[in-house]
């Protein structure tokens, strides 16, 4: 499989803050690659560099064999980028927005008619074609963004938190659209803070404080939690979770009324710390557990 994206030692600082600290990864053709991590991890900065709209301080990012700093416009011709913030014109209608981007990407007028019709149909926005983009719901806005991004049939799609603030039904719809694109061989890099979405990616890179602390398939990521996850029910989950993490040094988190404990800890340690007889079960954990674990520990590479 050919490499679409090659990132090497990418570094970017803003004044005192080092947003991205020497990250490296490759993405192959047809892959859905997820950059996952907490807010402020440097995901958006990394995406902007990949989109060739921000130059790195050090390191390089090669897109389709071209350098993002020296061949900006050539890269722009062949990729698409959807910014985290809705970037389309609110006072332009759905159709006007798509047409504008078709023109910006130099899609020939003859091809535009059929292409736009197909995209409207594909994103089920046909009946809203005359509606101003600002009057669309969150989910429809994202679908419109996707339609505008795909109008020139790009070879790489960069999505920065594409489903942020979108309801679950619309998110599912959005993902169905993405799967269709993947089936057609499109390469996608996306950032997300939703862990159910991370599980849908082929490969993940966990970013924390500007560094990639873990990488692999969702399954591989889950296996990075050493010794699995201990779960127990609690009436004061937050209190007991804090107690366990401060006393044992393990990573502890709360899901509903359940406390999940990960790290260098035994069942006996938990029992002793909580100071009552609790029913503890042990599972392999989810990507979400791994996310919490990796966010709170510096993963030793």
């Amino acid at each position: 499989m050919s490499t679409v994206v090659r990132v090497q030692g990418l570094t970017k600082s803003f004044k005192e803050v080092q947003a991205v600290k020497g990250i490296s990864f490759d993405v192959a053709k047809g892959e859905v690659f997820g950059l996952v991590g907490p807010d402020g991890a440097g995901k958006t900065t990394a995406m902007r560099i990949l989109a060739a709209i921000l130059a790195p301080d050090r390191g390089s990012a090669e897109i389709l064999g071209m350098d993002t700093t020296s061949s900006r416009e050539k890269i722009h011709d062949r990729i698409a980028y959807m910014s985290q913030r809705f970037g389309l014109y609110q006072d332009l209608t759905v159709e006007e927005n798509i047409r504008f981007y078709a023109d910006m990407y130099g899609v020939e007028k003859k091809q535009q008619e059929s292409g736009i019709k197909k995209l409207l149909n594909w994103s089920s926005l046909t009946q809203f074609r005359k509606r101003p983009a600002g009057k669309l719901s969150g989910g429809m806005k994202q679908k419109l963004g996707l339609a505008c991004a795909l109008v020139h049939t790009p070879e790489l799609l960069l999505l920065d938190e594409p489903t942020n603030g979108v309801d679950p039904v619309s998110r599912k719809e959005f993902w169905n659209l993405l799967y269709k694109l993947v089936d057609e061989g499109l390469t996608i890099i996306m950032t997300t803070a939703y862990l159910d979405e991370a599980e849908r990616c082929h490969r993940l890179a966990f970013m924390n404080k500007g560094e990639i602390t873990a990488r692999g398939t969702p399954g591989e990521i889950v296996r990075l939690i050493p010794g699995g996850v201990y779960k127990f029910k609690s009436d004061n989950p937050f209190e007991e979770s804090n107690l366990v993490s401060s006393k044992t040094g393990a990573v502890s988190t709360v899901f509903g009324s359940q406390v999940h404990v990960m790290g260098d800890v035994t069942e006996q340690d938990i029992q002793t710390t909580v100071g009552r007889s609790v029913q503890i079960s042990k599972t392999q954990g989810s990507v979400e557990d791994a996310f919490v674990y990796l966010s709170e520990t510096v993963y030793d590479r």
Partner: protein
Amino acid sequence: MNKQRFRAIAKKETIHVLRDPRSLAMGIAIPVLLLVLFGYGLSLNVEDVPLAVWDQSGTAASRDLIRDFTNSKAFQPAGVCHSQSETEDIIQSGDAMAVLVIPADYGEKIAEHMPATVQLLVDGSDSNMARLSIMYAGGIVKNEAQSSGVSIITAYNPAMDTTWSIIPGLIAIIVNVIAAMLTSLCVAREWENGTMEQLISTPVRKVEFILGKLVPYYAIGVIDVVVAVVMALFLFGVPLNGSLLALAGVSAVFLLTTLSVGVLVSTGARSQLLASQLSLIITFLPGFILSGFVYDTKAMPGVVIAITKLIPATYYVSLLRTIFLKGTWGAAPSKELMFLSLFTVVILAATMKKLKLNLDGR
């Protein structure tokens, strides 16, 4: 430059303007409003200046002259003096702003058809009022055929109606401010609304971006100039002594100049508020104060005169006055037009250099 992208940007920018009643209002209604307000309000005509009289002659001729003064709209009687010290006192106290002094031999000289002299003492603390009072007095005295003490020749404005010289300058100032402000907003708006990040991810080039943005605002500017000229001619009755073609040509160049200034401002300002404030300060203040619109630049110190030469509005004010009132077209206007063109090229070049279609350095 790619024509398709240029057209797409021009088209979408036009849609923004047409669908935003506020920017349309700012672009067209405000200039009309300003022209009406300033055209009537800023009229520098002087009326009812309180005038005291020291008539040392006390003859029929001197009383005729006094009557001419007090009957004019410019002056109203404010007392009688009998000595030098009284004339000073009445001006000091503010009861009169001018004193007409008629010498004792005035009556005799008029009777003998000899040149006679009268004196006008003016309160110089309001220099504008003083200057205009002297102008009016000169006009009145000239009507008294024999007496010719005060002689001020107003060459290009024989009616002494200041509206005539104000309106052309006013058109220049308004076009200057509005055009710069409109374009200064249009780039800042893209940053503020988050549409810029999406736009710069396309293969758009700077030239397409700048020129595409200029198109709709240029059209608004042309409408402004046309409306303002029509108002000047038909509402204020300003004569157009020069050619309409010259007026159109000069305005076409100046519009590009001031629109470019707006784009340059917006490359440095990421918020609409900052952009509008900046463009207002950059265009309005110097345009109003230093362009020769209100104050005669010739009377300013050398350094300030040098600064006025660097302000495009100075040239447009002067060119419009020339075209409207003088109607001539000599070597000087060509030079002024040359400067405007050069200035535009420099500003556009600076904009090209300063505009960043990426997020570097943010």
